[in-house]
């Protein structure tokens, strides 16, 4: 992506003309350049012609499955992909996320949510400033000294808790599937041991969240996994110092 360009370029791949028209309205009002494709193949051609900054991909395309489109485009590029799906397709969402999608939205969704997710994805791939300290609201993570501060007070994390936090920070604002997190932290043999993850998420939330029953940073994605929200709506905007 070209950081100097004012208007990020978003490609919408959806077979419903009405959804495409409304997404075009929403996105161009928010200052994006919008391109459209009605089929998976047309979308792939469009990407080959000119690579967009982000892709919004519907899972229910008539020609290629969303997972197939993702596999083919991931062979060439790592641009953020936001998938659209309907309720009850948890398995397909997980498959798409495992195939390289970055985030998902369930139809029907609000404009505000769509734009927030898209912004988060574009922010995530911004070339990182040489930094070793991250601030997320009241959380401060110092990579050099492996130190975590919550509202200025040091928080003691175990090695595994710290590794989990690092994984979330690396993939902040991205929906991570249970399988991916378990594989990264405990190895391929632990992909199905979701109780490890539940237990550690509980510990991490207890140490880092203000209210265990209304988490701000570590959000659960039903039947899918977790997401680390780098700029929760109720806290001060995050910064990368």
């Amino acid at each position, binding site marked *: 992506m070209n950081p100097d360009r004012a208007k990020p370029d978003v490609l919408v791949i959806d077979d419903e003309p009405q959804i495409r028209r409304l997404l075009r309205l929403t996105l161009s009002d928010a200052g994006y350049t919008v391109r459209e494709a009605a089929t998976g193949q047309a979308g792939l051609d469009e990407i080959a012609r000119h690579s967009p900054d982000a892709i919004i991909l519907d899972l229910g395309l008539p020609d290629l499955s969303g997972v197939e489109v993702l596999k083919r485009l991931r062979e060439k590029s790592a641009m953020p992909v936001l998938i659209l799906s309907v*309720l*009850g397709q*948890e398995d397909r969402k997980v498959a798409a996320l495992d195939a390289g999608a970055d985030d998902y939205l369930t139809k*029907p969704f609000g404009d505000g949510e769509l734009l927030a997710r898209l912004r988060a994805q574009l922010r995530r791939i911004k070339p990182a400033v040489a930094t070793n300290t991250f601030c997320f609201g009241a959380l401060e993570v110092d990579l050099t000294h492996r130190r975590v501060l919550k509202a200025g007070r040091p928080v003691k994390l*175990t*090695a*595994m808790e710290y590794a989990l936090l690092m994984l979330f920070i690396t993939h902040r604002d991205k929906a991570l599937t249970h399988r991916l997190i378990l594989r990264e932290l*405990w190895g391929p043999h632990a992909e199905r*041991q*979701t*109780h*490890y993850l*539940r*237990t*550690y*998420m*509980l510990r991490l939330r*207890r140490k880092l969240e203000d209210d*265990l*029953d*209304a*988490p701000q940073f570590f959000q*659960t994605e*039903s*039947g899918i996994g977790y997401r680390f929200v780098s700029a929760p709506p109720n806290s001060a905007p995050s910064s990368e110092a």
Partner: protein
Amino acid sequence: MSAANVISQTPAGVEPGTPPVRALAVVVAAIAAVTLVGYVVPLGFEAIGYIYLFTVIALSLCVGHWLALVAAVLSVLTWDYAFVPPRLSFFILHFDDVLVLGTYSITALVASQLIVRIRALQREREQLLTASERLHRTLLDSVSHELKTPLAVLQSATAKLADGDPARRILLATEIRAATLRLDQLVTNLLDQTRLESGALRPHLDWCDAHDLIAVARRSVAEALEGREVRLDLPADLPLFRGDAALLEQVLANLMLNAARHTPPECFVRVAAGAARGRIFITVADNGPGLPPEIVADPFQRFRRGPDACTGGIGLGLSIVRGFVVAQGGEVTAANNPEGGACFTVYLPLISPARVPDDES
């Protein structure tokens, strides 16, 4: 007309409507009449037997199970006493007549009982058919009402949006948003109920954390719970348990939505959880008016709604709650709290997970 009425009108028994004392009088009178005819008309005792049999069968067509039995037994005794030789005695002279009487008794008993049974089944079927027809009509009425109302709002609001006064746009947008939310909820419920009834629901059991489930469910109904006090009573050390997180979140969301819908805005919603006797429980309660007496015994039937249920909804929420919980091997109960308000509790079996590799050291 509410669907609850339809259900309460399903047949309670198979006995016909005649009061038993009057029916008994009819039975006795009929047997007495045949006996009188037997005395007046010069007929052989076998022929009179046939008339008794005919009468018992005719009576069986219009009385219940026990009275048909009484008619059969009474006819056997009367026939034997009054006509089978020697007359005016229960004693039987010829062995052949014992056989005739035996055959008669068996025929009368079996025929009368079979006829009563067939009639009852027929009546039951007719009543069920009427009830299901009525249920279908009610369902069609309420579904079309629930679908058409928000669509009407959308149509009218968008027309006004196109050519109306700009100042009214915010108001119209609010209406459109409310209508779409209502449609979304209805479609979700209809799809869930269809998934349940078609047997397409395959719960995906995995380790669940009650804190997490409740937080996600609350987030999903945040709009409906806005401005309402939500009291949480969750111990910090709740154990993990096996369940389908996506289904359970919807169960809890439906229960919270119900509490918000059926209580005045100043009432609170209380969510509690705990582990007891090998089970985990999650309770959603409120301090509103409680469940109406007509439905408190079983509020989980589909299309069941309280008599004063507000508009919106067709009575699928709780049916889905039970379907989803039972599909995961759990149980859900409903009751009114002694101190007031409705209280729903979901129970799921508690199995301790294998040890989690520790790195505290």
